[in-house]
């Protein structure tokens, strides 16, 4: 068992009391070298020795159970996993050493980490606020309306010198009225921005990739072309893809009977072998084959896409983007654009019907929906979210008017969370945001298939959302009143940004109140 680094605390307390290692060893009836080993975490102690040691040093035995150290180590592990570029993550064992040898530094790192997390939350809240805040929204609209009227009327007055007196007086009055309105709006805006401007560039690799995909509308014509050029036709099956890999790239598919690997597939480049987990469903197997083909056939096209992407500033971000685009290409291979778009529109985005027709999983279909942005053959513009059982958002693709939180959860009233309570049932909701905008939300919680007894199968939820104006293209909206007076659930973006003061589900105070 790995020991928790409590030696530094024993040493510090001993010195504090002015006791030598020799004296302590004598009191405890152990050797001096043993005391030394304990103080350097080379020996774990427990039972009566721990109690006697605590007594000799005048501290509670509970204080030496390592609980404090455990918390510090857990947080250090979080830092190692989350914020450092891939490939250079510190080894978990080194966190123990850091704590044992340089406890103040370890604690300094933690406070820095907490401050960063807090600031990230504020930054993303502020950036979302720009899209969501009803006051800003209204101000910008007022400003544009005033500017439009002023510009137009001023031009009319300038080039119609022979205008009738009454008409001229009327336009003069409009100019006065609009100029006053514009200055009021300017003041409102200035007040709203008093808290200062915020820079909102991506902060971590996943966020860089989110930004990249979002700015490209999650549509990559060059990758669609590569996929189509492979000549698999409308619906390539598993056997076709496996044969292609074998014949063109000498890669053999290997299915094992037992596997603890967390990933669906592992590629061994040396032995040209693609190992797929036994738990992989047929749709997953097919997708993994296509993903491997994408990585072998579309490398150049993928690299070209990310080469000049300003959003991808870190190496980790670029690696992650490569993976995301390989998955994109795999989707383009297994679900070619034109026939897929056709089927989706014809079947009105019926996920069950499409699963049967196309043989893809619900998640693969939802992902593919978000990529249907080819000019002239656009699908419904969707946002997509995936949440795990802890409510954490593990995948997010936003829409311009539906920002999604980067940290923590969204509003608990979103369908993505309500679906958690009724696994396997699709929940269709009309959600109204505080600024009056309405979105159609469709969510379902799924438990993945287990491949062996005792395996954990954590439920996760997938949600699609679209602007209400497109909802009638979805079979799931049948029977719902999609008009602007129809019933809708009042929801918000996140509590932090939500102006609904009387909401019973509020978790934390809104920043909007203390920012005015």
């Amino acid at each position, binding site marked *: 068992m790995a020991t928790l680094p409590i030696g530094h605390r024993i040493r510090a307390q001993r010195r504090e009391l002015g006791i030598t290692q020799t004296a302590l060893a004598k009191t405890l009836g152990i050797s001096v070298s043993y005391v030394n080993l304990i103080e350097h975490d080379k020996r774990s102690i427990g039972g009566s020795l721990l109690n006697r040691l605590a007594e000799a040093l005048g501290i509670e035995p509970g204080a030496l159970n390592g609980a404090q150290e455990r918390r510090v180590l857990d947080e250090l592990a979080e830092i190692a996993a989350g914020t450092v570029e891939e490939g250079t993550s510190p080894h978990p064992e080194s966190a123990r050493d850091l704590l044992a040898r340089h406890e103040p530094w370890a604690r300094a790192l933690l406070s820095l980490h907490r401050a960063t997390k807090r600031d990230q939350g504020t930054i993303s809240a502020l950036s979302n606020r720009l899209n969501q805040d009803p006051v800003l929204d209204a101000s910008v609209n007022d400003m544009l*309306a005033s500017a439009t009227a002023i510009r137009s009327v001023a*031009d009319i007055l300038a080039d119609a010198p022979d205008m009738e007196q009454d008409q001229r007086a009327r*336009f003069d009055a409009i100019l006065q009225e609009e100029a006053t309105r514009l200055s009021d709006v300017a003041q409102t805006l200035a007040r709203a921005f008093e808290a200062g401007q915020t820079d909102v560039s991506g902060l971590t690799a996943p966020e860089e990739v989110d930004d990249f995909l979002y700015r490209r509308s999650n549509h990559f014509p060059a990758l669609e072309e590569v996929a189509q050029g492979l000549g698999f036709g409308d619906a390539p099956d598993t056997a076709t893809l496996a044969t292609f890999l074998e014949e063109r790239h000498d890669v053999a598919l290997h299915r094992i009977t037992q596997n603890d690997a967390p990933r669906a597939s592992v590629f061994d480049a040396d032995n040209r072998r693609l190992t797929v987990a036994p738990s992989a469903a047929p749709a997953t197997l097919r997708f993994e084959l296509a993903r491997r083909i994408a990585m072998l056939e579309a490398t150049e096209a993928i690299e070209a896409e990310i080469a000049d992407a300003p959003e991808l500033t870190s190496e980790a971000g670029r690696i992650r983007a490569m993976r995301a685009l390989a998955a994109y290409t795999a989707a383009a291979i297994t679900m070619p654009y034109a026939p897929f778009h056709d089927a989706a529109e014809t079947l009105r985005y019926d996920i069950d019907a499409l699963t049967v027709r196309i043989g893809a999983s619900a998640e693969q279909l939802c992902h593919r929906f978000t990529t249907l942005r080819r000019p002239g053959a656009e699908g419904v513009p969707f946002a997509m979210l995936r949440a795990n059982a802890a409510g954490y958002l593990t995948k997010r693709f936003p829409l311009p008017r539906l920002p999604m939180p980067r940290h923590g959860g969204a509003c608990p009233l979103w369908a993505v969370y309500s679906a958690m309570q009724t696994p396997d049932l699709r929940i269709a909701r009309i959600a109204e945001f505080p600024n009056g905008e309405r979105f159609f939300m469709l969510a379902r919680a799924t438990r993945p298939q287990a491949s062996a007894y005792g395996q954990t199968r954590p439920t996760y939820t997938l949600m699609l959302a679209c602007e209400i104006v497109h909802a009638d293209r979805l079979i799931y909206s049948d029977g719902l009143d999609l008009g602007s007076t129809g019933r809708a659930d009042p929801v918000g973006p996140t509590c932090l940004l939500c102006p609904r003061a009387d909401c019973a589900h509020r978790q934390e105070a809104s920043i909007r109140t203390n920012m005015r």
Partner: protein
Amino acid sequence: MGKRVLIAEDERNIAESLRFLLTRAGHEVSLALDGAEALVMVRRMQPDALVLDLMLPKVSGFDILKQLRAEEETRTLPILMLTAKGQANDRQTAQDLGVDAFVTKPFANDEVVAAVERLLNGAAHG
């Protein structure tokens, strides 16, 4: 040659200046100040072109667009949409719904008059 143009715009001052401009261009201009009124007037007066603001009270510009494109009599009615700067997504949505042309606010007078003339002459619509 005078044509009938309907302007659906809730900002009275903008509507008024548009009416002046299009009247001066020789057209017969009517105003609708909200979305519901616009729908009623389109059906009643059957205009030759519609200038449609995106953000209308009661029935939104998108909803109007969608309803007009779903009806036989108005399927090919030339529609010019007024949008605000920086609303690329709105333009995309409007395009998906079948709008013929856009003018971005704040517009230049010549620009909006020329766009209406193009629509009336059938240049933008096949």
